[in-house]
């Protein structure tokens, strides 16, 4: 459908509705409540047009990174609608993401927690002002508490202080720890496998972190010697 056709649709039906609705909205200052009844497809059209015409490639970031996948499209639509995905759809999306998880090729889940801490500290990489050689950070402290000594931590995600200790990990090689360590790997590799519309990036799936780096991040969380578990 082209733009001019949408304009005519808009002028035929949409405008009258919008005009009628607008003054009420201005008084109440509650714009969200007036959402898009009847005009949602028109607004969606102009939204897609705006995205298509407004962004350009810059540095290492191509405009094509906006061509996103089914998971993000479904979650964005749910956010716009102001209600979470229904349970069935959420399960479908989680299953889709679970399938993408690459388990460690050598069966080794736990690396060096100190290297994990360094990755957790860094929020660098993959912006249009970075170059291709900028090492990617894990961005962990931006949203999570980890080592208690680091007071500069974000709160968008839950605190991960004592992550392994609270989950009873006393020996990373013990069979008792296997399930939680595997979950930790999977959650970092693809967070959406466990929570369809999680705010957390999919570090492994989207190529932000390598397998070796995820091993170090798992160590930071589960190793009883890690600063996180002191």
């Amino acid at each position, binding site marked *: 459908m082209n733009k001019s056709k949408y304009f005519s649709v808009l002028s035929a039906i949409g405008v009258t509705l919008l005009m009628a609705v607008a003054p009420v909205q*201005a008084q109440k200052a509650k714009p969200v409540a007036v959402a898009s009844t009847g005009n949602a497809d028109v607004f969606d059209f102009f939204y897609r047009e705006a995205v298509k015409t407004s962004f*350009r490639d810059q540095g290492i970031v191509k405009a094509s990174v906006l061509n996103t996948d089914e998971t993000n499209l479904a979650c964005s639509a749910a*956010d716009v609608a102001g209600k979470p995905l229904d349970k069935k759809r959420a399960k479908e999306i989680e299953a889709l993401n679970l399938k993408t998880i690459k388990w460690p090729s050598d069966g080794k889940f736990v690396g060096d927690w100190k290297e994990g801490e360094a990755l957790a500290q860094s929020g660098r990489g993959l912006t249009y002002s970075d170059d291709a050689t900028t090492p990617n950070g894990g961005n962990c402290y931006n949203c999570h508490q980890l080592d208690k000594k680091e007071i500069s931590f974000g709160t968008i995600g839950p605190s991960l202080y004592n992550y392994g200790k609270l989950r009873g990990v006393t020996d990373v090689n013990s069979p008792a720890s296997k399930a939680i360590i595997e979950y930790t790997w999977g959650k970092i590799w693809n967070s959406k496998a466990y929570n369809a519309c999680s705010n957390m990036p999919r570090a492994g799936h989207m190529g932000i972190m390598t397998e070796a780096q995820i091993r170090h991040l798992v160590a930071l969380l589960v190793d009883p010697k890690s600063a996180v578990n002191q």
Partner: protein
Amino acid sequence: MLALGCLTTTAVVAQKTAVQSIEEYRAMLADGNPSELFEAKGEDLWKQKRGPKNASLEACDLGKGPGVYKGAFVELPRYFADTGRVQDMESRLLTCMQNLQGFNADEIAKTAFGKGEQVNVTALATWLSSESKGMKFNLSQAHPQEKISYEVGRRLFFQRAGPHDFSCASCHGQDNTRIRLQDLPNLTKNPGDGIGFAAWPAYRVSNGQMWGMQQRLNDCYRQQRFPYPGFGSDVTIALGVYLGVNSAGAKSIAPALKR
């Protein structure tokens, strides 16, 4: 047990000191806002005859009629019949610079922030925002284009994409959260006086730069790992409408002072 108690106390004291010193630092900064220099420059640029047409901007229509600038900032972005577009302060300034002074608006839009005429656009926006300081945001949603712009902005706010799946809402969709130590306003609703949309243009102490809203939104997108949004493009304008309408009734403190 006693030793443990002491350790805890020490940790608490250390944390308090760090938070306190950040607060002290902020208070110290508020003492003198360098944005005043940009305000003075902006006022001068408004009155000065410049450009190929050697004209001032004094006849510029910011939405309240030619030459009326008091209170214009808190009603922008809005629809302008002459351009057939919803425009914010900065994109409207480009229109005036082109029509009145003969500058090439597209060229200025393509110029990097902090370079060439972009510096002057920022200074002008800074001064014009100061002429609405303390006033309440009151954006029109009467024109269908303004309504479309709001709805486009709302969809952009929740657009998850890029390698990190981030949207604006990843950071600005909840109450009382932080990135590291930085408090994040919830911009899906009115965040209050002088917060979010009501705090730009602002002088950023960390890099010594004066930023308008266009640059602020551009940098949000950069950190989101999104590509480069055009200056005054449909996405940055629509986001301005979304944030501005959500801020209805909030007092503007622009030009503000940021970390």
